[in-house]
């Protein structure tokens, strides 16, 4: 793999993981709110 390939791989892992964590937080909050609303 080229130098830039390694760099792209690293940034993909970082930004992809952060994006995934944000998405998981959004879904978990939505689900918890729905559960709380159901009482």
């Amino acid at each position, binding site marked *: 793999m080229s130098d830039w390939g*390694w760099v792209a791989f690293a940034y993909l892992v*970082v930004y992809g993981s952060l994006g995934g964590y944000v998405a998981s937080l959004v879904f978990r*909050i939505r689900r918890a709110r729905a559960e*709380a609303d159901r009482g």
Partner: protein
Amino acid sequence: MTKRTLEFAAAGLLLTALVVGLTVPPDAVQGDFQRIMYAHVPSAWLAYLAFGITMIGSIAYLVTSKLRWDRLAGASAEVGVVFTGLALATGMIWGKPVWGVWWTWDARLVLTAAMFFVYLAYLALRRGIDGLERRAKRSALFGIVAALQIPIVHFSVVWWRGLHQPPTILRPDDPQIDGPLLFALLMGVFAFTVVYAALVRRRMDLALIEDSLVEASRAGEDVAGAAVTAPSVGAKPR
């Protein structure tokens, strides 16, 4: 600052850090591989900060008994585990082309991995304890003891001779890094810190809802239990 403002600021700074990290001149020795450090070092810094905040939240809970501090400790630990995982992953991705191996049993690497697993255990402990107060108290004790690792991880590169380089910026003499590269590094640190703050605020929102669900569930159990076990007022004793 509202949550939305903080989140927009975090997204903007993250994008800026990405552009700066990919456009600054390459390092004289490492070339473009150095760019991975603009994500690796901020992730490692955030691990320290997040677990330090977990310790502060834990101490504050034990002093005040307010669950808000426990929620801060738990939220910060979860976000800290994400950043510690990123520090380990980016370190491995950098290590393969530069050191020739994905992993080596260097003190800094081993201690960082140990810290990662200790805080995974902390999160597992939080999920495994019934009762908000009991959970808060036990995880606070865990959170304080676990934070003893932070200085050990940081100074491991000074105390033990290994492959990992010693501190570049946080060192007694002048920082050993050129201006534009230092700017890219500090930009990453600042952006990741704002992202951390935005994530912890959202995670605390979630923790508040989860705690209210636990309390509602416990209250429901108490009422159901009372209906089954308590004799009704008008019942005749047998």
